[in-house]
């Protein structure tokens, strides 16, 4: 006869409610782990999925994700000319926040180097890659955009032609993929008044120098479009993504480019490390801390529950001792209940999580390894939590059964 099962069945209502409460708590612990895993996955997924070996960024910066990097677009051609480089693409990356249907829409805009890159490498869940140089975009589902939806950005309106799932930046903002030119148009968009003021300021600066006063056409040029002024650089890009030819020594190519005085080069592993150890490090630590604290709180609550359950049946335990039950029978009774409570709480947590996690503000990824580890922790905590109840039960004397 399994005494633990009999006791649980007899008090099934209370046990069910207790399990539900514990399960809810464990669901949050499980969710924290899932958010932690989601955070690290999101942080590195772009670097992992874009399929390039080297990132060439502004010298001395740790861009393009950990900090801002600005390099000229001509760097793409310089990198492409290095022996061993199969392909070099411009990379533009910036964050926007606009209003959509009265609600803020926060997204990371990523420029694809059209026509080399049309977004074929993206994990599309609906629609297609970009098919024209302008006014199309691929959006992540987390942004709430639908296929065919038209979204005004800057002075133009862009149509969603493809949808991805789970493509977010380290901060959890969904990605918008536009062509490089479009993404720069969005990034450097200025209002007409801003443009007029900038041209006027240039003219004023030219008037303060002798050359401007002696060359009237220069004043006219200074007040014209910035793109027609050779003195002003074209819009810059964030980085150059570099794919190597098969069999090429990555370290050798990296050393070559690293020898240039104006850029730094990072491998895919370097970028992933910078993201994990820099961009999301604090969040990782916070989540880890909360996870440990919540697990500890769960353990304390379990210990209290088990202690209370034991106290409630102290008379029955004394009676069992009176009729000759060994200590092992008592230990089994309490420990099996503890393990049952932990196991059922874990199952409830998992089931609740399946319904609740899709509504969490961050992506929750449950991996088999993480689930297994948490199951082990819950089992351990259950056993440890039962020790207080066991200690109390072993101290009770059989003659307590004869009192009152």
């Amino acid at each position, binding site marked *: *006869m399994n*005494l633990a099962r*009999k*006791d649980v*069945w*007899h*008090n099934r209502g209370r046990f069910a409610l207790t399990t539900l409460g514990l399960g809810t708590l464990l669901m949050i612990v499980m969710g924290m782990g899932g958010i932690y895993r989601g955070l690290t996955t999101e942080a590195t997924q772009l670097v992992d999925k874009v399929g390039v070996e080297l990132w060439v960024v502004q010298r001395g910066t740790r861009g393009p994700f950990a900090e801002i990097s600005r390099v000229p677009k001509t760097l793409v051609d310089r990198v492409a000319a290095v022996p061993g480089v199969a392909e070099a693409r411009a990379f533009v990356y910036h964050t926007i926040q606009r209003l959509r249907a009265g609600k803020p829409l926060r997204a990371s805009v990523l420029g694809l180097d059209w026509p080399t890159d049309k977004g074929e490498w993206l994990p599309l869940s609906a629609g297609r890659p970009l098919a024209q140089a302008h006014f199309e975009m691929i959006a992540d589902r987390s942004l709430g955009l639908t296929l065919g939806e038209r979204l005004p950005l800057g002075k133009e309106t862009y149509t969603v032609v493809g949808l991805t799932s789970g493509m977010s930046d380290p901060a959890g903002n969904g990605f918008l993929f536009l062509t490089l030119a479009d993404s720069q148009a969005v990034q450097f968009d200025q209002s007409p008044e801003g443009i007029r003021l900038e041209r006027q300021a240039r003219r004023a600066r030219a008037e303060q120098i002798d050359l401007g006063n002696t060359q009237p056409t220069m004043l006219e040029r200074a007040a014209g479009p910035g793109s027609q002024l050779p003195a002003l650089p074209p819009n810059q890009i964030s980085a150059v993504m570099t794919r190597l030819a098969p069999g090429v020594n990555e370290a050798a190519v990296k050393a070559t480019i690293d020898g240039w005085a104006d850029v730094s080069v990072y491998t895919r592993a370097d970028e992933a490390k910078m993201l994990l150890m820099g961009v999301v490090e604090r969040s990782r630590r916070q989540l880890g801390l909360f996870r440990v604290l919540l697990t500890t709180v769960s353990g304390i609550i379990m210990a209290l529950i088990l202690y209370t359950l034991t106290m409630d*049946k102290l*008379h*029955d335990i004394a*009676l*069992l*001792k*009176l*009729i*000759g*039950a*060994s200590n092992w*029978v008592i230990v089994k009774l309490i420990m099996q209940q503890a393990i049952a409570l932990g196991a059922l709480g874990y199952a409830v947590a998992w089931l609740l999580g399946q319904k609740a996690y899709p509504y969490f503000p961050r992506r929750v990824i449950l991996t088999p390894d993480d689930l297994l580890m948490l199951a082990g922790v819950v089992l351990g905590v259950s056993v440890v939590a039962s020790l207080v109840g066991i200690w109390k039960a072993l101290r009770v004397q*059989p*003659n307590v*059964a*004869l009192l009152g």
Partner: protein
Amino acid sequence: MRNVAIETHGLTKVYGSGHTEVVAMRDASLCVAHGQCVALIGPSGAGKSTFLTAVGLINPPTAGRILIGGRLVMEGPRALTNPRTFRRKHIGYISQKANLIRFLTARENVQVAMELNGESSRAARARALELLEYLGVRERAAGYPPELSGGEQQRVAVARALANRPSVILADEPTAALDGPRGRQVMELFRRVAHEQGAAVIVVTHDHRALDVFDTIYEMEDGVIRSGAAELSAASTFSGGKARP
């Protein structure tokens, strides 16, 4: 006395010390044979329950010796055997309150005692139902303790005490919660168990109406066992075999 089942020599129990010292039992000596049904009577506070719990290896005495089946099991406060194991195998204890495990049914309350003693679940279940039938509560086998009347609970407790066919049965005012006729039925049951199974039975009771069922009556007062009435013939006619109820 032949076939001595219980022997106590100079049992003394002292609670507290100094100003708060209370002597609950003083030099209590008694012998009970197999097949003998003995009553222990006396006023409240006389030390009857203290004596019974000492013999049941539940509450050790301060001094004195206890032998059960000729084996020294307690010397002073020191147990010479594992009390719980010994109790499980050799002693059936029934308290004033029915004392059933609340999360087990009537049948399971009887069954668990046998399973703790190594009986298989199936055999224990069958014998539990047999005992409940014998005690007239078979139809209440699936009921939990709070669903049973006081008398039914007490009969289930008796069934549990008999479950492992103990050589010693100790009952502390087992009829306190029962009406007159039912109380007498239980007392007669003890006598029958003693005579049929050869168990040594000590019953602490206040119920003087049923004293005629006992082979011997001892009186206890101020912690001392003072007198024993004439032994009836049952003990001497015990043949030593264990009959099933």
